[in-house]
């Protein structure tokens, strides 16, 4: 598992990470989301041993990551900005990786090169951005990592390749209990693949929950009542996060168990009552305190 405790990092007086805690269960996929500048890449660079924490611990399977060769041999990392040695081909890079990672799997490498149909003998610098990402993915997955950290892994990939990429990841999680942390702005795809989610804001972990739990705990409600008193009575005991009225129809975002919300609303005898779960994107927009227009759009 991946465990971060009380992580702090300052850059020239700017608090990039603030007492951050994070837990990724073994054999699960963790989605790290947050607005630009929230500290995702900084966190990832701590998770991969690139940056040293000011205070706090970053551990994988109970071992510190920073300067720990044994942990990094089990860690795969695909950064947002890729780096290959100049003039190297995919084949040449694979030889370098093979010398570095003890779990390197040549069969998998060959299979993935064939699957992604990348030219092995062409210079990586001549690859398109998407092809370079695929090449990095092949190299990383051929190392058979126990921990995989991905920073915008599908950015620049076409839908077919994206599907392939997710399939490899999901298969390894299922078959080898690989632990994955992925950061992406593509929340729709994250919603389909992640087991748990962490929302980062201003260097702090705002929410860290199991995805299903997160989504089942917040609801989008539309309801109309005979009179205002009934409406007020219906929502009085609930955790209403946002409320607005359009004509006689109330639009609300309510936190809490679905059953509790239904029981309270039905007790006020609604004329109309509709309750829907929020998508991950909607939860994100709401939790990140989007503008009123964003939330209104979300409720419509």
């Amino acid at each position, binding site marked *: 598992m991946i465990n971060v405790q009380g992580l702090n990092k300052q*850059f020239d007086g700017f608090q990039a990470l603030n007492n951050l805690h994070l837990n990724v269960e073994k054999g699960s996929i963790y989605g790290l989301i947050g607005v630009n500048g929230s500290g995702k890449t*900084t966190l990832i660079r701590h998770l991969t041993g*690139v940056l040293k924490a000011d205070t706090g611990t970053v551990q994988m399977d109970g071992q510190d990551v920073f300067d720990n*060769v044994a942990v990094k041999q089990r860690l795969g990392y695909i950064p947002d*900005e*890729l*780096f290959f040695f*100049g003039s190297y081909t995919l084949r*040449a890079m694979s030889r370098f990786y093979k010398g*570095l990672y003890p779990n390197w799997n040549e069969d998998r490498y060959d299979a993935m090169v064939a699957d992604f149909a990348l030219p092995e003998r062409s210079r990586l610098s001549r690859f398109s951005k998407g092809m370079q990402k695929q090449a990095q993915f092949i190299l990383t997955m051929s190392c058979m990592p126990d921990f995989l950290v991905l920073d915008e892994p599908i950015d620049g990939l076409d839908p077919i390749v994206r599907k392939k990429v997710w399939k490899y990841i999901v298969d390894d999680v299922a078959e080898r209990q690989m632990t994955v942390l992925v950061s992406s702005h593509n929340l729709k795809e994250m919603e389909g693949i992640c087991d748990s989610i962490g929302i980062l804001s201003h260097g702090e972990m705002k929410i860290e929950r199991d995805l299903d739990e997160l989504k089942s705990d917040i609801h989008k409600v539309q309801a109309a009542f005979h009179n205002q008193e009934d409406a007020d009575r219906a929502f009085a005991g609930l955790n209403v996060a946002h409320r607005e009225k359009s004509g006689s129809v109330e639009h609300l975002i309510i936190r809490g168990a679905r059953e509790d919300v239904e029981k309270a609303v039905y007790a006020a005898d609604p004329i109309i009552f509709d309750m829907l779960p929020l998508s991950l994107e909607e939860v994100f927009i709401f939790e990140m305190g989007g503008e009123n227009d964003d939330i209104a759009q979300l409720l419509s």
Partner: protein
Amino acid sequence: MTSRSSCLDLTLIRENFKRFWPIMAGGFLFWIVCGPFALALGGRPYSYSMMSTILRHINPAPIMLNILLPVALAVAVFSYLHRTNSAGVMHAMPYSRKSLFVSNYVSGLVMALLPVLVITLILLAMNTGVRPEYYMDASSVFTFGDFARFFLEEFTIITFVYSISVFAASISGLSVIHTLTAAALNFIVPVVYLVLMGYMDIFEYGFNAGTLIEEVALRMNPYIRILDDRLSAKEVAIYLVIALVITVLAYLLYKARHLERAGESYVFRPAKYIIGFLMVFVCSSLTGFVFHGQLGVAAFIPGFVVGYVVSQMIVNKSTKIFTKECLTSGLVYALVIAACICVFRFDLVGYQKRVPDASRVKEVQIQSNVFDMGLDGLPDKITDPANIEKVTEFHRLIVSDPENYQNLWLGNYTSMDYSYDSRDYEDPLTRPISFNIEYTMKNGLPMSRNYTIPAGMLMKDEGMRAVWNSAENGGLYDLLLNIGAVNTDFTLEGYNLTNASQGEFTNWESYEQDNMPMGTSRLAEKEALLKAIREDVRTYDYDRLFDDKDYAPYINIHLDCRESCDPSAPEEYVNGNAWNYYDYNDAGQPIYKHTVLDVNVNKSYVHTLEVLQSMDLSDDLIKAVKIVMQ
């Protein structure tokens, strides 16, 4: 599979060789062209002198390579540090920072050394085809030790330059800054040293750079040192220890490096300020030294402004150099430089007033242009405690009122400027003369001062007069007594100032030489001349030192006395008014010792001039004798 726990990662070293071999190959080809190829061009047998030139590092092209190749390789192997993506990816790989540093350091150093190692082996192989020049003994051959020494010196220089370049990699955040910093740091210590000496020269009355440049500045870097002389075993050891210390520092900084600052000029804030300050300091000092005579202390300002603008643009990687932070650092730089100027200008360390206690002085040497003419110098080394006491007393007199002697007599005259004409001074005793004192203390430490004082001050000093008249100063007359006319070459030459009588300063003009080689030819003339010189030297007195003879006509008599000597005797040299040189046999052993004296005969050499008049000299020289006697 290489163990990742080792600090030396062969995989990474191999990859570095794969990626950067062209740099190494370029260096090797350069060496081939300058060394073995140039040697081979002349055909067999290969030129002994050319091989000697290579082995003694006299060829400037390979010396230039000794700094270019290590810097280029350090920049190449550590280039991953200077971009955010490469720094991130490399440090996320299964390496510790230690193994990354050590592996990259070693691979770059090996690539820098391999060309010179191969060249050494090629030269060693070619040595069988080298023949001594026609004038050399057949036993003159290069030994394995000569080649080993050549490689060891190259190894030392390359390791030193490379270590500093790696240190620059640890502190810089951009490859271009790394390159500039590596080049600058390789010279920064001697440059700062020379700048400080410049301050001393401008502000400290009595400062004598003397041999400090040669003995200290040139030794601060093996790359500079090799331009002057070969490296001794002790120097090799010292340079390698310094390189090791710098490497350890570079490693510690690498470990503490803030990778998130890749892309900035410098990744450590103190480095940014220190480098910025050094740039401003050197720039302001340069204009200060050049224009101090015209502008005084204000001469430091133009250089400061230029240095500030350039340094702030570089260290901040921005043209916005008038921000609060930049201006604050500029203010601090200005204060530090002003403090530095004050330390020297007001002699806060007491340099100007310092005179050693005579009881702690082992010996002292004095040189002055008053003593330079003729056989009228002081002994090479004054060791008599009574004489040392008198010299220190006179030294105290000079430093008692430096402002007076520096300004009253000499205006803006500095020790760097000797271009004066004594005829500008109506009273010859007011003319400025140089007065150089070099103490050797009993603890072995040297102390040297160089003053410009009025001639009358030295003439009227009873202590210095007593030193001159002391028994310790009889050596030169004794030396003349030991010279025989038969085994001495006499060379006579007249010197005069053209139009001197009109008071115009023009170039020296020499009159034709007359040589009287050693042997019995013209023996009577030579004996008479030698006897007259001895008589004039014996009767020379202190006051005659201060005749206005510097610009008076004189006849130079150059005496070169040859004596047999024991081949096993070590060489010895004397300074002052006489010096020695040796003739060697084919085995390189000295067989003749030459003692050389120059006597400048001015009109006070009455006996000598009388003999010269009676000699059978050339018409030109007879004319010169007449001019001297006028």
